[in-house]
């Protein structure tokens, strides 16, 4: 069975256009590594957000640590501003079970107490296991249960979606 995946570049353009109205001078942005950080890098630039971009690596907050161990690719989280009282746009590439977002929120609260956190995702593939929803969604896709949906970035910086069926 082959699934028609949307063009990630087109989805990005739509998402960016919709976010333009939501961004204010107080908005700060944080991308979840690695795919979410790629999307956030572009949005941060295209939306002209003044405060430097933050990135989160949630390896220390994953809920599968005691079954799967520490992720071997741990790059430091970098939040170059005080999150307390901020209006945060949290960016990820694919919203799936909701566990990554839960980990990211747990980590964010160890930096301080944000005013609001809104979730921005490039694509939502459904199948949530936690009561988490996104406020800004580029596209909704339907993929087979258990398949791996990945965002990739080529050397020119172009984004594309890829499906690995089990």
């Amino acid at each position: 069975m082959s699934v028609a995946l949307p063009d990630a570049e087109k989805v990005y353009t739509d998402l960016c256009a919709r976010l333009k109205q939501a961004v204010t001078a107080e908005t700060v942005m944080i991308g979840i590594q690695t795919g979410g950080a790629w999307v956030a890098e572009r949005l941060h630039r295209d939306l002209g957000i003044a405060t430097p971009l933050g990135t989160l690596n949630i390896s220390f907050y994953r809920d599968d640590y005691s079954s799967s161990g520490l992720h071997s690719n741990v790059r430091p989280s970098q939040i170059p501003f005080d999150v307390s009282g901020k209006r945060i746009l949290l960016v990820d590439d694919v919203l799936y079970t909701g566990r990554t977002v839960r980990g990211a929120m747990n980590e964010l609260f160890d930096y301080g107490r944000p005013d609001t956190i809104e979730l921005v995702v490039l694509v939502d593939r459904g199948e949530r296991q936690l009561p988490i929803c996104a406020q800004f969604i580029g596209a909704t896709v339907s993929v087979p249960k258990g398949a791996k949906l990945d965002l990739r970035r080529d050397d020119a910086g172009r984004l594309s979606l890829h499906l690995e069926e089990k």
Partner: protein
Amino acid sequence: MRNPQLNEKGELQHLLNVEGLPREHLVRILDTAASFVGVTEREVKKVPLLRGKSVFNLFFEPSTRTRTTFEIAAKRLSADVINLNISTSSQSKGETLLDTIDNLAAMHADMFVVRHAASGAAHLIARHVAPHHHVINAGDGRHAHPTQGLLDAYTIRHYKQDFTRLSVAIVGDILHSRVARSLIHALNILGTPDVRAIAPQTLLPTGVEQLGVKVFHDMNAGLRDVDVVVMLRLQNERMRGPLLPSAQEFFKCYGLTAEKLTLAKPDAIVMHPGPMNRGVEIDSSVADGGQAVILPQVTFGIAVRMAVMSILGGGSAGRSEE
């Protein structure tokens, strides 16, 4: 024979020794530690990885710094920490080492951090415990002190980046130093081309050259153009018989002074695993000077121990939890 530090899937199960530690594991520990340095600078200096796990600090030999940094590391990973000063407890009542371990395992310990005066004590415990227990060697006799070797390597990488271009001099009581052994192995694994041991013949282990180091008895010759100077503590408590004329004599020949330090590269860093004997192996002006990175070593030590504990403590499909 399988590497006693790895499980059947090649994952790190115990940290006993830097010698024989595959390079990818060593580099992974250093990389992970870099992420933990950031955690210790945050408002909440804790991550939840070892929540609900119990770490037992078993110190059969006195230690303040190492025990404290292991305790802080475990607490920053949200583990429960139990400190046992065994020398004043069960052992004096005649309990064997492995009986002590079995009793603690029955109290649902997950990780043992072990310091012991006998070389090989941590290995013995690692061979004895069930697969879901982890053992970290926090110093065994003259043999190894792997987390110190790793934090020294981390410190060198932090300041000097590329090991493949470095000259590193280790100075002083190498004979009694498990720190020196662990660091030499780490430097070899990371591809350091020039590792020097500077010491009098009486404070060098026999066959030290086989570890891949160049031996110097003349400190001035040994320090020339090095990037890193690692000073070691004169371990009076481990010395049997007269290995040295006197501490003053030792300082004259092998103590690091500002004048001798000028022989090293101008940007050379000075390290010391602590505790320092000022005026015995290192002059106060150097210990407190701009090239010393002795206190950052302590800070990095916490991050390195967090990295080791978090890599060991996580599950894997082949490593059953109970």
